[in-house]
């Protein structure tokens, strides 16, 4: 038997004519693909993950990464990747890990939905000339307001529950310090502060360097409760209970002890070198009434000054679960879809559990409206928002705002090699290796993220203007601005949208 039956995935080609032997590739690769010994390059391309770092950093364009197409015999049933995964399992005896979101070819509903625009009877609005309002508030709303005073001179009676103000309906998803580098977290924090939106600490506690950005911070409480104390809870603008994650519904997390270096240990409040295990369930939440207790525990701990969000993975019964969460006292419900990313998840779980965010948000929004409680809570979509059009579509399907995670990391250099769990990220994003993490400069990273979101906001305004809408609130749940193409009737019904060509 040969040592390994697994065909290598990628081939690295070096153009000797172009190569000036500067050895940038050797230094840049986090996976040891390029070595230089005795005046010669040694290529370990069986280690290559196709993250493109060497290709992009090579000053003479001498490198190229190719898919290893020579093998194996084509089989429509046994795909290459399923055979490769099977052999890896056979050789390692371990469940396969992966990173980022599900990359399988399930239907992408976003790509089967088209948006509307005004013509004639309803003038489109030029966002450069007219006010175009995209400010969004997240938090619980009272069923009604009360006033005193005579008509025209009314005053509000009482005060409203706390809310989080977003200058645009988009936020950076939860990513813990540990899963990503400190510089990556700082890039998002700075961008969020500049844009007037939020970033999320994830479940890893708050690194002291993030303290200046507390006004734009969501602090997360997950099943491992890492770094959670009253200072932490009170430091952000909002608290998020993480029940589940779209990339690994029903599964906990595991940061191996060797990654728990001093800074992470301090931030998480655990011993250095100890495994950081997030159990699959919260061990104090075995049912909805326990969740209610945790929500109110957190509200007590924050003196009812912070809205509390509950984040769940989109699973088949998501609508009923969301309804329970709303009734349990959550101010915000966050639903994370099938395509949501992760730093590490079992590949089988990531690729086979959950449902697309488009269907999930639509189902949750409809259910909450049927129960007459949709206006009480805010609904945040996460998992697979790729562009401003996706953002508009998910808002029209019922979300108040969306989290972006993968999109933010792509802006910082991620090439979706899905090897986050190795800690070798050549782009300095999903690694704690100081040699690699300094590749992200928080100032430049923040600028890239800020550019990205500003463009999305501009595009969002253009979409709204085209529809003749000048306040983002009029987009929310506005399914009549959507039409489906290439979807069967039952999927259109599930999404609550009409077929393209059908009028109002």
């Amino acid at each position, binding site marked *: 038997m040969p040592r390994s039956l697994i065909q290598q995935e990628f081939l690295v080609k070096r153009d000797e004519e172009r190569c000036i032997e500067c050895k940038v590739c050797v230094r840049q690769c986090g996976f040891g693909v390029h070595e230089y010994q005795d005046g010669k390059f040694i290529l370990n391309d069986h280690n290559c993950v196709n993250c493109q770092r060497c290709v992009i950093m090579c000053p003479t364009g001498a490198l190229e990464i190719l898919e290893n197409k020579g093998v194996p015999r084509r089989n429509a049933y046994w795909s290459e990747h399923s055979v490769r995964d099977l052999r890896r399992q056979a050789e390692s005896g371990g469940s396969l890990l992966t990173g980022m979101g599900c990359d399988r070819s399930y239907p992408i509903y976003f790509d089967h939905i088209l948006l509307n625009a*005004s013509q004639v009877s309803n003038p489109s609005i030029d966002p450069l000339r007219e006010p175009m309002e995209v400010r969004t508030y997240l938090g619980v709303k009272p069923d009604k307001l009360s*006033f005193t005073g005579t*008509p025209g001179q*009314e005053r*509000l009676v009482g005060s409203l529950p706390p809310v989080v103000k977003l200058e645009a309906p988009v936020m950076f998803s939860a990513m813990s310090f540990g899963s990503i580098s400190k510089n990556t977290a700082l890039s998002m924090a700075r961008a969020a502060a500049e844009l007037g939106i939020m970033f999320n600490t994830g479940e890893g506690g708050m690194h002291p360097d993030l303290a200046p950005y507390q006004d734009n911070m969501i602090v997360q409480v997950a099943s491992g409760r890492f770094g959670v104390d009253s200072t932490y809870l009170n430091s952000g603008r909002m608290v998020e209970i993480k029940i589940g994650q779209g990339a690994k519904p029903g599964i906990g997390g595991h940061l191996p002890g060797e990654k728990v270096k001093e800074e992470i240990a301090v931030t998480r409040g655990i011993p250095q070198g100890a495994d950081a295990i997030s159990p699959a369930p919260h061990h104090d939440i075995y049912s909805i009434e326990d969740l209610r207790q945790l929500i109110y525990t957190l509200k007590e701990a924050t003196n009812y000054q912070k809205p509390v969000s509950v984040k769940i993975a989109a699973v088949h019964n998501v609508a009923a679960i969301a309804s329970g969460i709303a009734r349990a006292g959550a101010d915000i419900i966050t639903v994370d879809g099938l395509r949501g990313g992760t730093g590490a998840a079992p590949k089988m779980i990531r690729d086979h559990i959950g449902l697309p965010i488009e269907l999930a948000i639509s189902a949750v929004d409809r259910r909450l409206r049927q129960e007459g409680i949709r206006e009480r809570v805010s609904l945040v979509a996460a998992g697979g928002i790729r562009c401003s059009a996706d953002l508009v579509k998910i808002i029209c399907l019922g979300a108040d705002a969306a989290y972006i995670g993968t999109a933010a990391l792509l802006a910082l250099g991620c090439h979706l090699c899905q090897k986050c769990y190795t800690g070798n990220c050549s782009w300095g994003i999903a690694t704690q290796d100081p040699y690699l993490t300094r590749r992200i400069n928080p100032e430049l990273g923040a600028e890239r993220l800020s550019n990205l979101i500003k463009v999305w906001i501009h595009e969002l305004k253009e979409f709204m203007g085209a529809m003749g809408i000048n*306040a983002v609130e*009029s987009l929310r749940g506005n399914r009549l601005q959507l039409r489906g193409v290439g979807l069967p009737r039952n999927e259109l019904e599930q999404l609550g949208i009409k077929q393209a060509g059908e009028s*109002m």
Partner: protein
Amino acid sequence: MFSEYREFYDYDNDICEGKVRIPSGCAIAGLINRESKKVKGDTIAKMMAVMHERSNGLGGGFAAYGIYPEHNTDYAFHLLFMDDQSKKEVEAILVKGFRIEDQQEIPVRRVGAHRNAPLVWRYFCSPLDKEREITEEDLLLKTTMRINRMAPRASVMSCGKNLGVFKGVGYPEEIAEFYRIDEYQGYSWIGHGRFPTNTPGWWGGAHPFSLGETAVVHNGELSSYGANKSFLENYGYELSLRTDTEVLAYAIHYLRSQGFSWDLVSKVFAPPHWVEHERMEEPERELYGALRRVYAGLLMNGPFSIIVAFSGGLMALNDRLKLRPLVAGEAGANLFLASEEAAIRRVCPQPENLWSLKGGEALISRVEEESACHVA
């Protein structure tokens, strides 16, 4: 999509959506006498007739206030039926919640294009005692929703006290003729000429839309319709008439049932822009911030001019960007509102004041008030 409407129209001979296309816009008009003096229906009909070119014959209608003083304690249901069977079904729904005190076919002239018009009846009703565990407002809403579910076979034109809506497919002056509205006298009137662009032209889809004590006419298109619909569905409203204006009627009903003044209703429909909000002083700032946060789903987005009639008053409002015309004119105790100045001058050649409403600023006028109107 609208195949169910087909059986009620003779597409070759009847006027229907898609058959006629004249590039123009909707027309709206309103008038009120703040000394409660009764004005005959021909005044509003004349105002509408001047604006003939703004509609295409696919819908016209009027609402009149103060027309049934002899029945002023009863709810006056104005109902449309396509056939006798529908009428029977509707009556069965009505008697579940109401005692019918009086009923009659609304007097009409079945001539010309309207010889095959639907049946139009009015029922003066008082709520049954056994339904007293819900408020009369809720009973009206429940009954209206039940009847409108039958649309297009039947629909409620109006159901308020001492008021009535008269509407149908045709030019407003034809509808006035059909319903003989010159025979009614009211202290306030609103009228509408329709030019439907994205919803079918059918009798129930004509304006005004009315629920309870209010009626609304609308020129414009609500791009926020889908969002407004989503909001209202939380509170038991069913949008069954397939036209954007329906949300206005229900939004008004919802907000009024929450105790909102007309000033506040206008600020929900057309809230100050955030930039204006930032310049406000407390406690105004807090009030408008809270209104926007809680009732953003009822923000009316897109071009509109509306005139809302209610017991004892009128409210007129334009969208925040002022994308539709709306002119007001005052003469003595009379206030006139119309899409075009010409409509006002037709019935009041020399108004004392004449002005165009500003975007997002409501004009509210009540009977028996010191001043004819105020701006909110």
